[in-house]
């Protein structure tokens, strides 16, 4: 039960032959993402993302905790991805698989270790207390390109999330409720996203945002993590057939274009949602606090 059903010979040959003719099963071009939809739940940092038939929910949460001994000025940030049988019958509940480990590694590198979230700003009182931010990824439907979809959703969530305000008074940490003080946004230093490329036919065809069937037919993949400014923060040629070095350079440009495009969409969706929240007014805001 731990593996997706293998592709049949016919399917594999067809996908490869179609790509030779620059055709994909859903009629997309090689550098085209599937339709992306980002919506938000009731709480801050609750993102529902749909990329074609891949869909997931990301929830961001914060709690006050003690910083690590070796990093007294730093807050904590953790990305938690657990694949359950909901996303695909091939995934067994409560047991991790290769995809989970791989996706976690990519997300960790692109979002956390590139310091997209400024963890120093999460410090409340040196060595005593800090914020711990947690991103939980729930995969609802898996149809390929899990990492890019999760990356977009986490970055959206981090920008959308508001944590309660906290101050230090006479050595005491006071956390204010949402109705006492306006909750604060997290400090985002840059907006990196991952773009996954899959290669076919000895590297002659390279596509973005592969579906599950396309991923299964792929000979190798290349992941590039890049931000709006064009700074590459992650490159991984993790497995499969080799890719020409020049392709990595060429594809970095494609990735940059995609990231700019997605970040614009993300910004739009978020502004629309925040405007809607502002309209709803304080009444709702305080109700949200009561629920807490």
């Amino acid at each position, binding site marked *: *039960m731990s593996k997706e059903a293998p592709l049949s010979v016919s399917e594999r040959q067809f996908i490869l032959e179609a790509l030779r003719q620059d055709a994909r099963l859903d009629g997309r071009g090689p550098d085209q993402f599937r339709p992306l939809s980002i919506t938000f*739940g*009731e*709480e801050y940092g*609750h993102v529902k993302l749909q990329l074609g*038939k891949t*869909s997931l*929910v990301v*929830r*961001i*949460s914060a709690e006050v905790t003690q910083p690590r001994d070796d990093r007294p000025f730093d807050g904590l940030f953790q990305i*938690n991805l*657990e694949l*359950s*049988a*909901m*996303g*695909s*019958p091939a995934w067994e*509940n*409560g047991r991790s698989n290769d995809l989970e480990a791989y996706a976690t590694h990519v997300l960790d590198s692109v979002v956390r270790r590139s310091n997209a979230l400024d963890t120093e700003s999460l410090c409340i009182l040196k060595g005593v207390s800090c914020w711990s931010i*947690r991103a*939980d990824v*729930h995969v*609802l*439907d*898996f*149809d390929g390109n899990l990492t890019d979809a999760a990356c977009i959703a986490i970055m959206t969530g981090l920008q959308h999330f508001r944590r309660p305000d906290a101050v230090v008074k006479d050595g005491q940490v006071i956390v204010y409720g949402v109705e006492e003080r306006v909750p604060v946004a997290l400090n985002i230093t840059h907006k990196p996203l991952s773009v996954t490329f899959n290669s076919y036919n000895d590297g002659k065809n390279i596509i973005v945002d592969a579906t599950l069937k396309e991923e299964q037919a792929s000979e190798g993949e290349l992941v590039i993590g890049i931000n709006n400014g064009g700074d590459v923060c992650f490159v991984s040629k993790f497995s499969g057939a080799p890719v020409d070095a020049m392709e990595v350079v060429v594809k970095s440009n494609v990735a940059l274009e995609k990231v700019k495009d997605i970040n614009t969409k993300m910004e739009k969706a978020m502004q629309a949602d925040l405007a809607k929240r502002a309209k709803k007014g304080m009444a709702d805001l305080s109700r949200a606090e*009561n*629920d*807490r």
Partner: protein
Amino acid sequence: MVGPTASLSTLNRADGSASYKCPATGYDVLGAVNGPIELPARRDALKPEDATVEVFVKPGNTTAGVGERYVEGILRSVLGKVILGRERGFPRRGVVITLAIVGGDAVERGDSYLTILPALLHTSLLALLSAAVPLSMTFSATLLGVTKSGEIMPDLSAADAKTAVSRHVLAFSSKNHLLLNESEGRFDFNTWEQVRERALSICQELTMPGSDGDVAMGDESDGSKVDGFVRETVEDRLRRDYTWKIDS
């Protein structure tokens, strides 16, 4: 009082799925059912003639712990009784039910899991219906709290549940049999008897099963009545799936 909202077959990959939102507690639960499928590790379970039911509860923003395992046990025993695991294609296979709490506050470690239990039960039922897993009956569940003054409160919020002296989750089958009773806190037998009656009337102020079957379900079932609401959700989806048939 706003009734719960739900929709069926919301996911693509799972064999059956449902999303369920309970307004009183704010919980938003997604359920997925896969079955019948092969469970490699547990092929020859204790009952080889029966299907194995697996339940997995995934909290929204914490790691699963003891509380989840505990509630999984409750769900497994209730659902195991309702699922007809001996129907064709099911013996020795597994029915895997995955429930993700995608909205609402996390149940803090050590806090009562009863507040979310009705939502989990309803989501599982709807997802099982969506996957067309054979069931002997449907059921409905409700959460009631008893205050210090001995008053029985329906539609508890998470905060109400904390202040209540005792909390009770009761589930009744569509034939009005008591399927599940989980109680917490201090209460005496008389209180429980009152709670049971109240819960039964909440779960059952519903379309009467069977007798109601041939009447086209209309406005008679309002959302807060749990069983009627299950029926409504199922009918909505079936009508949508079969528009081609109904219209012609």
